[in-house]
């Protein structure tokens, strides 16, 4: 296959392979993924996703040797999370790759897994940045300056060019009124400049997530060599198809944003963190969910919509909850909207709880008064109060189908490189760190690893 495949062509082929894999057509899926691997660069954002899907296809097609060989290749990757996935999946493919159980402690594995994670301090993070991220940050800063220069340079050219052309044309042809010409230039140049800017900013962002955000996630998830749950967190700047499908289903099931079990018309997710902390499996990502109406194709075949409305933008968290329950419980911020029974009666009855501080911050609705109280123990209420203070934002929770869902809305994009602020400053890094630690720390903050029976 030709090495110079366009991004959209790569995406299309990947989706096609993924679809084949899910439909049980393993051979065409393998053929597509193998061809893709041969044609895309190892630094491409999709390279690891293709490798991962290919391994799964090999596994399901009972070509274990090939799967193991590719998995071993991944396990030796320089990218920590990629190598980690490879090592973990090797153990799934064959028990002989299972890591030997550490014998230094006598505690049973389950207790060891549930050991509390010590949250990292800002001072530790600063030290980590100085020791590990300085080279990447310097490179990023240079790239940022170059991008800014490019943007300003191109803007100046766009301003000078029409004046120059008018001067040339008036010299050769003689234009009395240059205004229509200026307007024509504006119509052509402004969109061209915007497209150019988008491209420049996109290329500035490439590599940022892998080099900076992924390292920060690894740093927060690192609980020291003695902890067996170290290395259980994974980071992916983007996840595709199956994972996106899961997020759509989780967001719909959570009923945090609306009552109907209707999926959002559009969902995008970025900066996905998933894995295990102690005994608890977690997933969170920055999610954009939209409602779209009046879809049609324009003259260039692009999808256009008459109306778009944002349903949710922010961090969305999902974890299996330790207690068994069957009813729904919603913990909403105690604002005007959530205090109007008429628009909230689909969430169930109001549950009045005993903790006055919790009642001041939250409004609880639930289908079953006892089960809501069973879930919201006095301990969890005080932990949630503390968590809300720590987040400094509105926090929405729902307990549905055995899962805990948390949504924290944000107005701005998260985990993006700054263009107009120096990347050598600690402020943006501190923001990334605090946002990520807030989410990863939920398991400890809400004590989700606690098993009530032992």
């Amino acid at each position: 296959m030709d090495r110079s495949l366009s991004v959209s062509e790569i995406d299309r082929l990947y989706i096609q392979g993924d679809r084949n894999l899910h439909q049980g057509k393993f051979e065409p899926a393998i053929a597509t993924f193998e061809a893709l691997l041969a044609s895309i660069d190892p630094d491409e954002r999709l390279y690891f996703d293709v490798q991962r899907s290919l391994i799964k296809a090999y596994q399901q097609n009972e070509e274990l040797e090939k799967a193991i060989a590719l998995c071993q290749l991944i396990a030796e990757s320089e990218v920590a999370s990629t190598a980690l996935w490879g090592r973990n999946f090797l153990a799934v493919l064959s028990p002989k790759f299972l890591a030997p159980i550490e014998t230094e402690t006598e505690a049973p594995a389950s207790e060891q897994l549930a050991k509390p994670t010590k949250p990292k301090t800002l001072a530790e993070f600063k030290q980590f940045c100085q020791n590990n991220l300085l080279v990447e940050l310097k490179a990023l800063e240079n790239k940022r300056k170059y991008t800014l220069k490019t943007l300003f340079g191109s803007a100046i050219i766009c301003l000078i060019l029409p004046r120059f052309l008018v001067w040339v044309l008036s010299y050769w042809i003689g234009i009395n009124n240059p205004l229509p010409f200026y307007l024509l230039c504006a119509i052509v140049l402004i969109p061209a400049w915007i497209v150019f800017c988008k491209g420049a900013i996109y290329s500035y962002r490439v590599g940022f997530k892998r080099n900076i955000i992924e390292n920060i996630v690894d740093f927060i998830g690192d609980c020291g060599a003695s902890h067996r749950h170290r290395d259980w967190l994974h980071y992916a700047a983007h996840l595709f198809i199956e994972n996106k499908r899961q997020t759509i289903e989780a967001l719909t099931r959570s009923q945090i944003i609306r009552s109907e079990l209707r999926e959002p018309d559009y969902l995008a997710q970025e900066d996905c963190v998933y894995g295990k902390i102690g005994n608890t499996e977690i997933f969170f990502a920055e999610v954009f969910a939209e409602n779209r109406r009046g879809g049609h194709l324009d003259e260039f075949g692009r999808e256009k919509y008459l109306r778009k409305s944002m349903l949710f933008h922010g961090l969305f968290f999902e974890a299996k909850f330790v207690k068994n329950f069957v009813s729904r419980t919603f913990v909403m911020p105690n604002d005007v909207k959530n205090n109007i029974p008429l628009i909230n009666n689909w969430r169930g009855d109001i549950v009045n709880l005993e903790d006055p501080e919790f009642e001041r911050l939250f409004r609880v609705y639930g289908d079953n008064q006892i089960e809501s109280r069973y879930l919201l123990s006095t301990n969890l209420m005080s932990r949630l109060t503390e968590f809300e203070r720590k987040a400094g934002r509105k926090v929405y929770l729902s307990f549905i189908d055995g899962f805990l869902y948390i949504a924290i809305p944000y107005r701005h994009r998260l985990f993006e490189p700054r263009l107009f602020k120096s990347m050598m400053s600690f402020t943006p890094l501190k923001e990334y760190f605090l946002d990520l630690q807030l989410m990863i720390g939920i398991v400890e903050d809400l004590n989700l690893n606690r098993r009530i029976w032992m």
Partner: protein
Amino acid sequence: MSFIYTLLSVAIVFLLIGCAIFILGVKIYNGLVYKKNQVSKSFSSVDVLLKKRWDLIPNLVSVVKKHMEFEQQTLAEITRLRSQVMSGNISEDRRLTLENQISRTMGNVVALVENYPELKSDRHVSQLIASLNETEEQISAARRFYNTSVTDYNNALEMFPSNIVAGYLRYQQKELFVTPAEEKNNVNVGELLN
């Protein structure tokens, strides 16, 4: 003519006031009945969960008694308390006291299981203790719901104007579930072993 109009106006005003008072009275009456029923409902929820716990007790006792030879007294105490509660002919207050004693004694048994590694590693015992702890937490939630319902009901009985309707209906204040003083202290495992 104007006198008739005045009389009619006064009658309409009185009628409206009467209607308003009637509607308010119905609302207060319904609210009180709802709150009273809510208390009964929450108490029956506690009752259901307590019965669920009774069912677990014989299983746990039969599994652990062959291992816990030295704690026969504790196990006998649990069985005795359960029999008393199940006999049925006891007052509500006495029953609550007995249930609290069962809670405390069951807590002791769970704490004692920690001392028997063979019991702790037994899957059946672990499952029983898991069910028991889950039930205890559900009981605690049901008690909290009961207390909330009782507080709402008692408030309605004392507050104006619902206290007038409650007085007319001869509604009585209800008691909250209160943790006994001895349960407020931390469990001293060392003491249990003596």
